[in-house]
């Protein structure tokens, strides 16, 4: 075992996929954003100079090229940059890629992988801080992947690039530099298999992406008070491993869902609804959701902190869930 950053694992996955599959190419000039990790992608350009494209600032066009190329047999990885700009490609994501297979009675496939940097990055204000994947969850036909660790990023990207379906992969901008354990030989991870990131008997916490390390920090603090959190990371929202989540709730009887998307119609809401519907008999207390409130993201630090879930807010919500019921 050694440690690797999320960003480095992401680049490893792209490199290995390009080496093993000549259909894979990259449309995107700054897959890792503008931060210090950005130069990690240099070796992709060096080793595959004719398969990495610096596109114009044309999210709709870049996404469309990826969708079309995938319909024609390629496996493009299209980076949409800051996730807030994916809205410019909304039609290509939700109304082209997502529906093509269904609309052609299963004859056409669109095996394109999209990537974007989501979340409250710090000082990004309203227009650079969004997490649009909750909205995409309402677009049937798209696989949605939200890794939280280096090993998961590697494994899920390999699966995304091999998947016959269109896949949206979201990376939280603040995850890129975080190092986590990886084994010598990283391998593909199937979609729809949740990972229990921490075992505990008292309460089930479900989280993805950056909220996973935040929940681990909260869990450590709670453990000092004898509260044992079980942290379930679904890793993929589509397909969703409902079984593992409900099985965990059947043991703990309590559920806290943590996500950075706004509350209404969000990721936490969907997971809460699923457990309420299919695991109601296991619940000893109401489900608690920890999310952003339904506001845009403000620039100023105290305002931004106020609206963003963090380990303290998560720990407080877990304590609340244990007191109730």
């Amino acid at each position, binding site marked *: 075992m050694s440690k690797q950053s999320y960003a480095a694992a992401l680049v490893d996955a792209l490199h290995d996929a390009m080496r093993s599959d000549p259909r894979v190419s990259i449309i995107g*000039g*700054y897959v890792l954003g*503008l931060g210090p990790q*950005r*130069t990690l992608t240099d070796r992709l350009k060096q080793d595959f100079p004719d398969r990495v494209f*610096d*596109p*114009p*600032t*044309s*999210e*709709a*066009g870049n996404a469309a090229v990826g969708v079309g190329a995938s319909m024609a047999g390629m496996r493009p990885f299209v980076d949409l940059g800051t996730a*807030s*700009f994916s809205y*410019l490609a909304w039609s290509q994501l939700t109304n082209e890629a997502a529906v093509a297979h269904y609309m052609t009675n299963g004859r056409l496939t669109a095996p394109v992988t999209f990537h974007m940097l989501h979340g409250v*990055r*710090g*000082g*990004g*204000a*309203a*227009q*650079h801080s969004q997490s649009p994947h909750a909205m995409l969850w309402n677009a049937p036909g798209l696989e949605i992947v939200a890794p939280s660790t280096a090993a998961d990023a590697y494994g899920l990207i390999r699966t995304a690039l091999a998947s016959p379906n269109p896949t949206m992969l979201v990376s939280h901008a603040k995850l890129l530099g975080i190092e986590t354990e990886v084994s010598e030989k990283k391998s593909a991870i199937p979609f729809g298999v949740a990972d229990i990131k921490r075992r505990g008997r008292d309460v089930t916490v479900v989280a993805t992406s950056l909220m996973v390390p935040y929940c681990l920090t909260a869990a450590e603090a709670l453990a000092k008070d004898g509260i044992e959190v079980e942290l379930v990371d679904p890793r993929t929202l589509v397909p969703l491993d409902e079984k593992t989540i409900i099985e965990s709730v059947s043991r703990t009887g309590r559920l806290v869902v943590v996500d950075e998307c706004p509350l209404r119609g969000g990721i936490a809401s969907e997971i809460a609804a699923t457990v309420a519907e299919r695991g109601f008999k296991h619940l000893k207390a109401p489900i608690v959701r920890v999310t952003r*409130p*339904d*506001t*845009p993201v*403000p*620039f*100023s*630090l*105290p*305002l*931004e*902190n*106020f*609206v963003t879930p963090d380990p303290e807010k998560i720990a407080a919500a877990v304590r609340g869930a244990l007191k109730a019921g």
Partner: protein
Amino acid sequence: MPKGPGEKRQWQFLERMLLIRRFEETVVKMATDGHFRGHYHLYIGQEGTGVPAIAALKRKDFLATTHRNHGHILARGADPGAGLAEILGRATGLNGGRGGTIHLCEPKLGFLSTSGVVGGCISLAVGGGYACAQRRDGSVTMALFGDGALEEGVSYEALNIAALWHLPVIFMCENNSAGAMGMAKGGYPSLVHASKNLLLIPKSMGIKSVRVDGVDAAAVHAATTRAISLCRSGRGPVFIEAMTPRWAGSDPLWPELATGITDLRMATGGAVPTGKHQAWFEHYDPVLRLARELANGGEESVHRLSALDEATRKRIADAADFALASPLPAPETALNHVFVQEASA
């Protein structure tokens, strides 16, 4: 340099251009000192475009700007203290700290939403032009946007609508890509476009289109004045491409004060431009270029220049003090203003 109203205007331009320059120099210092977080964009090198273009507008007109908005906001007369406070996320900032550097906005001065979405400005401005046309009061909307906006699809849709409906919109495209290394080489983005002549794009839709030297304040003012008068008389829209070579400090991905604190004595012979930015100092710095023209007026002008510089430095120093002393907003106010509150509507 002719005396009279022309010269008076030139001095007014220089006053605003220098205000922007000192403001931006302060922004870099505040960023370096860790007073605010995140990416930011400076208007240094483009003052010769924004100031005279905006000076040609009237009170009733609308404007739209982008992530590179500081210069536009100041050119229109916004308070530099409130501008710096916004960049620092303070409660006294233009947007109460909610926007930050990318979204400085002053609706009272006619600004529509300051959009950080590339292509956002040019397209919202067409909506501004639509409103002006509906009002029938001769007002116009000016979009001040970067060349990169023409990489976005929505820009074509917006240009087409403006052309079809003859909307009173001045499309001021600030092309700062000349000489830039660009993203592919690890720098800040520069134009990635198959067309090497951007004017052909609006021209293909029958939009009157001109190119000007964006460093030459007088030329920009003349072109903008003509464009505005066409728009006011229902013969818009007009597209202006203002060319400014990429300022060295905006060439890397993260801005830096590449040419140092501007030394106005370079315009009066009191200091000699040297080093690797010599050509910029001599030819492409719009502030120095205009100051040099005005200093040609003789001894009195030289004194006037240094007095202006001193007053401007003081004004920005006061603005910085105000911003740094301003409180941060109360955390729970983050929940306000998602919707219009009836009382404040």
